């Protein structure tokens, strides 16, 4: 079942310099798609358009069957949560607790449920001991976890992570990734914007943006092995996959080696 339909979407901040051009993208319910693209390719702009923070110049956006318009924008925002790039500028509350509560207060969740969810999701991102802390006493990564908890607690159908793990240490990143995996297994649609090739392995599909255009939209393994596309978007192929390609070009066709290398790129 479709959950997001973007048709012929175009956008520019200043006339004459298009930021997104003729984007058509469909996302199924429960899918996990990764958006890759160089700096300034329009990834964050796309996520802002999806929740109506920016208004498209051309084209249509449908979320859960609702077409985005002035009348539906508030309903659509209830379906999509976005974890933004900069954790400092999305910390609304005076304390961690207040910040996680902010979205729940807006959704008019009853107070008892709110308290439960705050505890539950703070524990999920490993911040339960910090509930009374103020943001300026937290590290960048900790603030990012709070931002993630704040979005998770809203229990939306779709979550967009806009380079949400870029501030985290490897362990923190793995926790968040396995959490994203768990959410996805529970049926949440995940859109992960990232520069990290390993992260994209978790997803079903990869969409590659370059200068505001989709230059590739395919299954994860297909994109990750596509040297040309990766080069075009300033990305480097994972080492095991590079080896795999090399072996293929040398006509080595040992299935065991190939599956082993693929496995390695997933775990390594």
């Amino acid at each position: 079942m479709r959950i997001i339909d973007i048709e012929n979407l175009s956008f520019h901040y200043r006339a004459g310099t298009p930021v997104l051009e003729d984007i058509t993208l469909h996302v199924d319910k429960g899918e996990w798609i990764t958006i890759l693209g160089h700096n300034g390719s329009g990834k964050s702009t796309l996520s802002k358009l999806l929740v109506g923070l920016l208004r498209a110049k051309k084209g249509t956006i449908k979320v859960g069957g609702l077409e985005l318009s002035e009348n539906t924008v508030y309903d659509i925002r209830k379906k999509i949560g976005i974890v933004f790039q900069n954790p400092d500028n999305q910390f609304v509350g005076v304390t961690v607790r207040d910040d996680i509560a902010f979205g729940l207060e807006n959704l008019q969740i009853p107070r008892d449920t709110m308290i439960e969810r705050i505890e539950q999701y703070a524990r999920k991102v490993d911040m339960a001991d910090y509930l009374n802390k103020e943001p300026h006493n937290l590290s960048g990564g900790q603030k990012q976890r709070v931002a993630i908890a704040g979005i998770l607690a809203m229990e939306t159908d779709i979550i967009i992570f806009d380079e949400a793990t870029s501030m985290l240490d490897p362990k923190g990143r793995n926790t968040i990734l396995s959490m994203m995996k768990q959410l996805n297994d529970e049926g949440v649609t995940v859109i992960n914007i990232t520069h990290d090739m390993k992260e994209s392995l978790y997803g079903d599909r990869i969409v590659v943006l370059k200068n505001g255009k989709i230059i590739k939209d395919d299954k994860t393994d297909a994109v990750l092995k596509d040297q040309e596309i990766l080069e075009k978007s300033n990305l480097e192929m994972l080492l095991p996959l590079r080896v795999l390609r090399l072996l293929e070009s040398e006509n080595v066709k040992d299935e065991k080696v190939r599956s082993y290398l693929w496995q390695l790129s997933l775990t390594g």
Partner: protein
Amino acid sequence: MKNIVIGRFVPGKGFLYRMDPRTKIIALVFLMASAFIIRDFTTMFVAVGLLVALLFVGRINIIRVFSGLRPLMYLLAFTFIFQLLFNTQGDLVASWELHYSPLNILAVTMLVVTWFFVRRRLPFKFFFFIATFVGVIALFATLRLGPAFATGTLNIHQNAIETGFFIVMRLLVIVTLSTILTLTTKPTDLNLGLESVMSPLKVFRIRTEEMAMIISISLRYIPTLLDEANKIMLAQASRGVDFSEGKFKDKIMQIVSLLVPMFIISFKRSDELANAMEARSFVPGQPRTRLHQLTWGFADTVALVVSLLVLTAVITSRVVM
């Protein structure tokens, strides 16, 4: 830079900490009004006595209260001295003849110069400043060195002392009361309390919830912006801007070099923050549920009644006398 936020919340125990912020705000208004209404010495002394008692019973950190009062000291001293010198109403209480002679002026100059050079090393700077000021007048009034080329008189009147005293006491009481409020109330609670106390203003279409939201976000961003200012100052310093020294013109340049980046950063921040808030379904003016709830206890009723009694007593005493 962090000391800018005067009268900040300091965790502690004592009944004032447990009280509902609404009670504290309303009681504060009652007591401040009382301080303004009091017009006789006895009542004022009783009021100050009660205030000191409150500080002790509420286990308030007295040193913090004093440090809150310190910036006010110069203002109070000037107000009082101004009244003494220029208020000429009421009976004459004291009168001195001021003797301006070259030698007297020399003596006064020496006193001032001495103060000027040692003041940096003195504790209780404020006390010595006042002492020097009084000393200057005392020297003119008492020394009779050599022939005077001019004389003046210093007359002190009844009203000058009274008015000066009441202004000073009122300001002291008011600032102490508000310091007690901010010391014992978390900014978030204070904000909730203000919002709740002001909610009747909604009748006049004043959007109290949004005002509270604005205050709460400002509170949240003060430390962040201070950090930012520090960072910019360091960055500018590494480019050769010296923030400690310089002439007036240089100072202006330094301030500009701090303010311009601060403005740009703040605008960018607020833009991103607004996006993040909207994305989390915040719609200005829409009803929201609240995590924080204020709870009214028996102690709150008592406190409110007591402060109302104080106000009534003060009004009665004024009418009777």
